């Protein structure tokens, strides 16, 4: 294995409900040029430029299946090695790191983009369900989350107040993040009073949608990374895991796929006590209950203890392990972009450049991405400076 993989640049757009004046290509271009500017890397064929490009996108949001074929040129996918990940952006980081570790390339440009405003998210997520049986029932990712939330909160006695606290924390943290979409001064009572979306999930407990935005990252081999920047952030571990698609094949109260993905990443990074090891976590919670459940899968607490974890205050800013100092998905991130943006946020923190949302002296962080109904696909990336 050829040394470590370094993150040498990250960029993100401001996340907004509807970027009506911007073509998808403009979102992609802005973040692409920003990371190229940070590194001084260009698309050169003499071996000093970017070797490969890798995009994470949902074509179904962009319009026709295969939309990337006419958008790829924006990220430099022209007469150059190019690959694509169709699911969460965290997987592009995983895949890009593997490309470098293989020794095949030294630098990879990653871009993730999504304009959820182009089409109804529910419709796209409905299309993500088994086409013969589940679609017929009308199941989509929101209803899958409802089933999971009900099962999880019932099995472990997680209270509505504990879930609501996640929303309050996210919005409070997002107020310190200039890229975040919403940062309402919301209370637990406000959350519990909001309309029921999908029992027991209330509107305020769901990721806002639509959200438009993009994110870009440049990864480099250890040797190149040291030349490009004096503040490289290292990817120390990664792991992913796919669960059953059929909800009935899993106990939705537990997230075995995430536990497995985390264990794979932690094993690679030599991490045995994640709660103690990490200075912050940026995780993909599309619904409030998920921050509690994913905390269990990520090993921050035992099974069924996610509620106690938020009650303890450990995951607040200033606690032992702040979760989502950026505000996370509940403050508004597009699906697909979210996972890559979680990694980018960890990098900003580990570079000490997170401004008002900075976790002082952050040395180690974990990013998490998710896709599919009720967290079918899980991906975990560990980083350190």
């Amino acid at each position, binding site marked *: 294995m050829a040394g470590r993989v370094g993150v040498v640049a990250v960029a993100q757009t401001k996340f907004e409900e509807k970027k009506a004046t911007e073509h998808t290509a403009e979102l992609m271009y802005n973040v692409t040029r920003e990371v190229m500017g940070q590194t001084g890397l260009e698309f050169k064929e003499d071996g000093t430029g970017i070797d490969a490009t890798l995009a994470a996108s949902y074509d179904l949001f962009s319009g026709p299946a295969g939309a990337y074929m006419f958008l790829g040129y924006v990220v430099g996918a*022209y007469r150059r090695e190019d690959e694509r990940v169709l699911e969460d952006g965290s997987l592009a980081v995983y895949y890009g790191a593997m490309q470098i570790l293989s020794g095949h390339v030294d630098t990879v440009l990653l871009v993730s983009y999504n304009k959820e*405003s182009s089409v109804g998210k529910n419709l796209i997520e409905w299309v993500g369900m088994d086409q013969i049986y589940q679609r017929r029932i009308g199941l989509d990712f929101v209803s899958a989350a409802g089933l999971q939330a009900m099962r999880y909160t019932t099995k472990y006695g997680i209270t509505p107040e504990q879930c609501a606290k996640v929303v309050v924390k996210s919005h409070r943290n997002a107020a310190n993040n200039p890229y975040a979409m919403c940062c309402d001064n919301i209370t637990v009572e406000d959350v519990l009073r909001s309309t029921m979306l999908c029992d027991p999930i209330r509107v305020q407990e769901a990721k806002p949608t639509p959200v438009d935005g993009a994110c870009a990252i440049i990864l480099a081999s250890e040797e190149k990374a040291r030349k490009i920047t004096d503040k490289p952030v290292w990817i120390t571990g990664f792991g992913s895991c796919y669960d059953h698609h059929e909800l009935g094949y899993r106990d939705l109260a537990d997230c075995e796929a995430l536990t497995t993905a985390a264990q794979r990443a932690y094993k690679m990074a030599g991490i045995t006590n994640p709660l103690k090891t990490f200075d912050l976590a940026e995780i993909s919670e599309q619904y409030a209950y998920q921050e509690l459940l994913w905390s269990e899968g990520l090993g921050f607490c035992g099974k069924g203890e996610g509620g106690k974890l938020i009650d303890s205050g450990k995951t607040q800013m200033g606690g032992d392990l702040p979760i989502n100092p950026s505000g996370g998905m509940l403050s508004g991130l597009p699906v697909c972009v979210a996972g890559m943006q979680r990694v980018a946020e960890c990098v900003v923190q580990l570079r000490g450049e997170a401004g008002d949302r900075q976790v002082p002296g952050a040395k180690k962080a974990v990013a998490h991405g998710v896709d599919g109904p009720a967290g079918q696909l899980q991906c975990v990336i560990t980083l350190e400076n």
Partner: protein
Amino acid sequence: MTAEQKKEEQPEFIQFRYPREVPYEHALGYQSKFANALKQGRIIATKCPVCGRCTIPPRIVCPFHHVKQTEWVDQGQRGRLISAFKINFPMFNSRTGELQNWENPIIAVELEGGARMDGWCAETDPSKLKTGMLLEAVWRPEEERQGRADDILHWKPVEE
């Protein structure tokens, strides 16, 4: 094996049809300039400051040089035929989403301004189409134009 047993082993194979509509709303962003020009009966293209190539549809960067294209160049109303083919199978009508047969050949045109674009030819007899022949844009009536590619109804050959 009796005929009855055989029947049990062969189920009726079923296929479901799922016609569905997915309504999209695409923001044109920087391409709005191009669409507005079409509405006015004009064809404009983005131009690369490095190589001078003009591109239609407008590109945010030159695909060759990855440089932002900020200059717009009028492409005129005429161009020369690069290639053409007669369509012998039904194609989608982008306005209706329906499959239909097309009388007009699909063509690639190099415009006076240097950009290349696709369209339909008014001449339906493929044997009369010659590479390099001069063509002129025929527009939809102004009130029907939406800033879409088919605001140009077709390209008609011009006598030289």
